[in-house]
């Protein structure tokens, strides 16, 4: 085991994938000489050459669209979108081309692209640098969507994403980029948990708290704080946003009877809405209270001095837990 930051783990995952398969190529803005604005690709151009770590002009649609052509040719491109808010110029190529070409060609053309997206807030960035666009891609059939929360998952799941013959949107929680953790670099991928498997990261009996990516650490903090208050929270890291692995959620909610979902993205049609609906369909008779969502607001991302009000934090999560438990909370006495 090696202690790595999340960025170092992703770098190691890219390196391993490139060593194993010469058809793995990286494309993105500033990923070569600079090593990426977050240094995720640091040193890779030096070791693999500019034909495999391709510094591109500033054109997101072209980064994705030329990767489509490379995939036609048998390559496995890994695209870096520099920031979440910059993915929209490439949106059409992702949802109209990358997602659909396998089905459109009756399975004859594969699109094994991995599209890495640093996402989410909490780092004090200006506009367009702190967004949570995952819902758009979860809604698009043909894509797989991943969000990692720790260095080991980042290393393992990135390699799984690159090995996948389906296109993968790989959301990296930028505010956790410097979080450290133990990583098994010799991990046997065939023995690793499946890329789509949700994981219980803290066991509990009173409430099921579901989240992913940047908020997993916050949810764990909330569980620790609640424990001191006599409440046992089970925290589930979704890991895969498409498909969502409902098995562990169903099993957990049947035990706890209570569900709270939390994410940074806005509430309306966010992942929380889907999870609440799906768990309610599957576990209605086990629910002891209406499921609760604790999310970002339905607003354009605010200036960084205000983002602490937008992002769910430990206290907002605990308030949501109180709502699920029927304990006094900020909405007590409010009808509907």
């Amino acid at each position: 085991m090696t202690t790595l930051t999340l960025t170092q783990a992703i770098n190691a995952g890219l390196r391993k994938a490139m060593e194993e398969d010469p058809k793995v190529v990286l494309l993105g803005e500033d990923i070569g000489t600079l090593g990426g604005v977050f240094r995720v690709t640091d040193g890779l151009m030096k070791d693999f050459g500019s034909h495999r770590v391709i510094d591109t002009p500033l054109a997101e649609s072209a980064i994705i669209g030329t990767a489509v052509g490379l995939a036609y040719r048998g390559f496995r491109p890994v695209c870096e979108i520099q920031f979440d808010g910059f993915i929209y110029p490439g949106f059409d190529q992702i949802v109209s081309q990358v997602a659909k070409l396998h089905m459109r060609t009756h399975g004859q053309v594969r699109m094994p692209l991995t599209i890495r997206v640093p996402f989410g807030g909490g780092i004090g960035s200006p506009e367009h640098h702190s967004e949570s666009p995952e819902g758009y891609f979860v809604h698009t059939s043909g894509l797989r969507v991943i969000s990692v929360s720790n260095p080991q998952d980042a290393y393992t799941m990135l390699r799984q994403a690159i090995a996948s013959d389906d296109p993968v949107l790989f959301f990296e929680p930028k505010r956790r980029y410097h979080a450290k953790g133990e990583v098994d670099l010799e991990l046997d991928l065939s023995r690793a948990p499946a890329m789509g498997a949700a994981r219980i990261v803290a066991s509990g009996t009173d409430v099921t708290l579901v989240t992913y990516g940047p908020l997993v650490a916050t949810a764990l903090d909330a569980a620790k704080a609640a424990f001191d208050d006599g409440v046992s929270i089970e925290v589930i890291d979704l890991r895969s946003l498409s498909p969502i692995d409902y098995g562990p959620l169903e099993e957990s909610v049947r035990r706890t009877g209570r569900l709270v979902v939390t994410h940074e993205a806005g509430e309306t049609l966010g992942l929380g809405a889907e999870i609440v609906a799906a768990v309610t369909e599957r576990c209605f008779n086990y629910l002891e209270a209406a499921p609760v969502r604790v999310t970002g607001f339905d607003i354009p991302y605010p200036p960084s001095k205000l983002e602490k009000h937008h992002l769910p934090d430990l206290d907002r999560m605990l308030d949501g837990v109180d709502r699920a438990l029927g304990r006094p909370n900020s909405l007590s006495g409010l009808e509907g």
Partner: protein
Amino acid sequence: MLEETASPETSPQPGIHQLIGADGTSVVDELLAPFVTDVDDDQLLELLSDMVVIRRIDAEATALQRQGQLALWPPMLGQEAAQIGSVRALEDDDFIFPTYRENGVAYCRGAKLAGIMSTWRGSANTGWDPYEFNMATPQIIIGAQTLHATGYAMGLTMDGKESLAIAYLGDGATSQGDVHESMVFAASFQAPVVFFCQNNHWAISEPVGLQSHVPLAGRAPGYGIPSLRVDGNDVLAVLAATRWAATRARSGGGPSFIEAVTYRMGAHTTADDPTRYRGVTELEEWRGKDPIARLRAFLQGRGKLDAGQEAALEAKADAVAAELRAGCINMPDPAPMSIFDNVYTSGHAILDRQRDHYERYLASFSGTEVDALAEGNRS
């Protein structure tokens, strides 16, 4: 060679390159002539045959749409020389990224007629295996395929291959951001890609003048991409121009841009009515530049096209049309459960659940009906 005109510093030729004039007489063009010195009368007859056949495909498909057998059809009437001249300049291992209108190109690549029709009948999204014919699936999103061609061409370079990728696009596509981004990338990485723009003068109802205040070929040098304008109704000139670009690509010269100046004589698709947006005079002017009549006159002028050959051409076109009609009308509807196929390369829990539930729903009907649904409705 054309290097002096191809230099990024040089504006494209103000005129339009031609080898056969509108009246069927030979035109001297020092730029293009060297690329077709091997083309003899027999090969010209084959080009004529191709054009006659794809015009007949076009007419038959248009009729089938009017008869309710096709949901839609994008006519290529008037653009036969642009399609045939370009595709016949390619090698088998060159990879084509077409729009939705290159049905004549698909035919020449070997795609089955029923397969070509299946997209327009609504039976399938793609009517051929892209890797069998080295031709991508038809692209509906305007200009998207130019990036795919550029990326494929970048891959060819990485693989050390000497073949090329060609992107077909229309005049309207040149307004799309993807086309401009593709030219930036193609120039940046000197990708062996040919941008083959068929300027048919109309992007549905928007005239080419709305798209650009300069000749479309004039844009490419701004990206460092050599370009030329060619008479798109002159099949020999289009063949030569595409060979020029292909030669550059294969020899490491990088991307090229061809503007084939032609005219869409029919509608954009069978869903629109061109009489609402363009005048009769314009259409009649272009009818006088008909690509098939031109080559026919050229060959007749050389005494190389007799009544027997004409009859053979028509007979071939009739046979193709009959095959197309039969293939279209007898095409089975796909099986209902096939809507779930190939969305992913392997299982996806949510989709698998939906598939399972829908299968159970279908199974709640009579067994006979379920079987029929599963096997496909052959009505």
